[in-house]
């Protein structure tokens, strides 16, 4: 460890108060767990446990632990979030602190990979302008760090960057970097930034392509870092906004209605040992550069190799180096978007699952503090819980099928099974009811949730929604865990963050048919075993059986918006940054699109055809080393083929090879314009004729 130990934290964060909080939390969790296990043990085997029942008890233990952890996080969070928490870092800033001018330089970085370009740069625009209004812009620089391998996105990003710089006079403050090789994906992209420019800045704010942060919060985060030199990372709890589909709006509503106390509870537990979620966070760069570079894990993917979920590990490394990692529960200023559909959620979870499973090896590594280890454990458990739940249900079915057995039987008189059932329901629903009560009794309920009636309806409907969703996620997460164990890695898929309005019926049917059949067969077996048992397990099986209609229905745009269902503060009264973003994006989407035939290779077309885009693209390329004659011949062949046969005749790798060579791109520009029509692919002929109609106004990729 090279970093010196940071100065002692303020007495406000004394170790005693931190220990007291953790002891309270874990005592409560442990008592609940013991009660649950005792009840489970008694309900299973009043006359001793057989092997199957022991297996059920073993599987039940982590599941009940997870349940009670969630319960107590919410309950404690509810208790502490009612008053101003003295251990919330934001509350440590005095009025004078908040007015003070900043003295530290901060880089706001946004690593992107084939994302919606308008959304990236319009997001940056509102953050930039918000900082400008705050009067603190001079202390921030912006970096878009692109790993996009889609040639269209690449060119679109270059253009949008130029246009944004021109519109905001942001040259020298907004920067664009495209990596030639996306080594180590997002974490490699961030490390690349740190190696090149990290020394210039004291702090770095990491954003995702769908993140938005207000200038006021950004400035305050820098002030907190300045005031607490022991803090290495401060992670905000972003609020979700911008959902359009039913699925997205329910998730967004749930986050708004129930999220805040969970965050407060997490902060209560973790204090300076919180975890980092990879975005909407500020990082002290010096220790990050010195101590948080990620090594490769031994072995190959999926368990070894490059660390996928890098943020948890970076947080643990920062703590290992003696710095603190804090969660900052905030109710405004930090925002992100969520996946629009169930299918998109599953695709994201597939990636996250493998990342979390990789952390298994880190559980046993030396040097972590206990909370960092616990964070790894909770991350793993969040996915492993699914196959455990699945196994528990299978074992329960087998138990029900055994002659003379009735799983979790509810008998006469005192019935541990019944008490356990009520306890479980209590753990699941009491926090929700308390939260609902709290939201209903707030004076500004209409401002936050449209009306009391809409809030009640939304909570009722989201209970049905999550009752169906949970078993579907259980099956898929189980599948993901098994795939990971079998060594099936994941590829780095681009994320879809907005619905395009079209519901993909075919993909839903193909994805969920298997589990629908499984649920039907399981239901028949359960009924054959015992109708009582079938009734007990039916909520789970019905949820799985409804996966296809659920996926299709929730991917649609109708979501009860007119009735006020699932409304949130950000929807009803968008804060300035979100309002501005939505305004700019609505303008962006009014512009005419190229024809579908051209749209597929529009970026490439612009980079070759348009004199200015060609010049921009070439200006941003590094001068190549002298090419070998073989490479030159290869590029010449590709160049001629591109002109004669059109872009569809080349694959992505070949197009990239051409686009990375500045000399070839200049040559292509003149080759194309000077080629007689007969020598051009029909695609280019059409492109030349249509292009000038599309660029009637000075080109603004931001508005395409």
């Amino acid at each position, binding site marked *: 460890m090279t970093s010196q130990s940071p100065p002692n934290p303020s007495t406000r964060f004394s170790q005693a108060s931190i220990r007291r909080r953790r002891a309270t939390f874990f005592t409560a969790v442990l008592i609940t767990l013991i009660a649950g296990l005792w009840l489970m043990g008694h309900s299973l085997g009043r006359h001793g446990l057989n092997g199957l029942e022991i297996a059920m008890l073993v599987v039940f233990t982590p599941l009940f632990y997870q349940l009670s952890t969630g319960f107590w996080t919410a309950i404690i969070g509810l208790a502490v979030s009612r008053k101003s928490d003295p251990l919330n870092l934001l509350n440590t800033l005095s009025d004078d602190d908040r007015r003070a001018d900043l003295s530290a330089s901060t880089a706001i970085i946004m690593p992107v990979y084939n994302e919606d370009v308008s959304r990236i740069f319009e997001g940056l625009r509102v953050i930039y302008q918000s900082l400008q209004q705050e009067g603190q812009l001079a202390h921030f620089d912006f970096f878009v760090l692109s790993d996009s391998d889609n040639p269209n996105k690449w060119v679109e990003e270059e253009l949008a960057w130029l246009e944004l710089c021109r519109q905001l006079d942001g040259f020298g403050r907004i920067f664009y970097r495209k990596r030639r090789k996306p080594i180590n994906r997002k974490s490699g992209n961030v490390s690349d930034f740190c190696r090149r*420019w990290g020394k210039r800045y004291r702090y770095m704010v990491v954003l995702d392509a769908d993140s938005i942060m207000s200038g006021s919060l950004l400035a305050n985060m820098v002030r907190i870092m300045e005031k607490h030199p022991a803090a290495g990372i401060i992670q905000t709890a972003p609020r979700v906004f911008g959902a359009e589909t039913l699925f997205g709006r329910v998730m967004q509503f749930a986050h708004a209605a129930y999220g805040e106390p969970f965050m407060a509870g997490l902060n209560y537990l973790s204090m300076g040992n919180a975890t980092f979620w990879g975005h909407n966070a500020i990082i002290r760069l010096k220790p990050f550069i010195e101590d948080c570079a990620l090594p490769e894990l031994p072995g190959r993917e999926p*368990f070894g190799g490059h660390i996928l979920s890098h943020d948890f590990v970076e947080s643990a490394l920062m703590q290992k180096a003696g710095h603190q990692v804090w969660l900052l529960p905030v109710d405004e200023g930090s925002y992100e978007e969520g996946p629009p559909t169930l299918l998109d959620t599953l695709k994201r979870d597939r990636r996250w699952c493998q990342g979390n499973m990789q952390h298994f090896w880190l559980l046993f*590594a030396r040097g972590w503090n206990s909370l960092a280890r616990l964070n790894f454990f909770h991350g793993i458990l969040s996915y492993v819980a699914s196959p455990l739940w699945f196994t528990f249900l299978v074992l329960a079915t087998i138990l029900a099928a055994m002659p003379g057995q009735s799983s979790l039987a509810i008998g006469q008189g005192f019935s541990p099974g019944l008490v356990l059932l009520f306890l479980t329901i209590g753990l699941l629903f009491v926090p929700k009811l308390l939260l609902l009560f709290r939201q209903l009794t707030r004076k500004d309920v209409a401002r936050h949730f449209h009306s009391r009636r809409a809030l009640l309806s939304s909570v009722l409907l989201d209970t049905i929604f999550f009752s169906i969703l949970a078993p579907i996620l259980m099956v898929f997460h189980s599948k993901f865990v098994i795939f990971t164990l079998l*060594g099936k890695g994941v590829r780095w898929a681009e994320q879809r963050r907005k619905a395009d309005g079209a519901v993909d019926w075919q993909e839903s049917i193909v994805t969920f048919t298997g589990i629908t059949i499984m649920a039907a067969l399981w239901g028949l077996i359960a009924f054959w075993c015992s109708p009582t048992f079938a009734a007990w397990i039916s909520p789970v099986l019905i949820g799985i059986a409804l996966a296809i209609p659920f996926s299709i229905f929730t991917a649609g745009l109708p979501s009860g918006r007119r009735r006020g269902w699932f409304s949130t503060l950000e929807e009803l009264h968008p804060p300035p940054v979100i309002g501005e973003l939505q305004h700019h994006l609505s303008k962006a989407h009014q512009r005419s699109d190229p024809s579908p035939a051209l749209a597929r290779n529009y970026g490439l077309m612009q980079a070759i055809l348009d004199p200015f885009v*060609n010049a921009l693209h*070439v200006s941003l390329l590094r001068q190549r080393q002298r090419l070998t004659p073989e490479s030159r011949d290869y590029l010449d062949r590709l160049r001629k083929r591109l002109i004669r046969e059109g872009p569809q005749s080349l694959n992505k790798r070949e197009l990239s090879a051409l686009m990375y060579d500045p000399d070839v791109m*200049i040559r292509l520009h003149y080759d194309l*314009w000077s080629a*007689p029509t007969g020598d051009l692919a029909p695609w280019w002929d059409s492109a030349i004729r249509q292009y000038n109609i599309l660029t009637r106004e000075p080109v603004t990729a931001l508005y395409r």
Partner: protein
Amino acid sequence: MDSIRIDFAPQTGTADEWNEAYARLSDYFRAHRLHSRVHRTYLILETLKRASETHARHPNVSPTEVAIHEARRMQRAWLRNIIGDLNIPEGRLDASGRMAFLLSGGPSTYPEYFLAADSPPQEMVDAMRQPIIQSGPDLAFSSMVPRPIDLGPISDIAEDAGGFFDRHPWLRYALLASLSALVLWGVYSVTR
């Protein structure tokens, strides 16, 4: 009625070929955001005139190619007057010049000076001679070297096992099948 004199009579190439060259030049200049039709027409005719002379010397090349070549030559000469002394590599003169014209606001503010023989206004020249674009600040390199994490003894065993399974991937499935069989046997033993 007054007669007019059309000062464009190429000795080589067909009318269709020159019409195609005209259309291509029109598209090309329009792609430079030159929205004034009058100005564009002047540029096209001037370029075509020069191209027809060149084509007479190279009749095997298509008029379209010659016309665009001529337009490029005119553009390079014009740019050399404005930014020729800025140590821009010869191969990048066109691209850098086009970029400079765009960033100076040329297409919207000074379109009539594009390729014009008249001296462009000083503000335009100054704007074009600004540093072209800066996509990143000056580099300030840091060394960010990963430190090995001591994963403990379990990871050593896992690494060995992982290597073994990597060499024999079918064993992964065999192990899964064996575990499944063991579970089934356990279930059978308990329930029989």
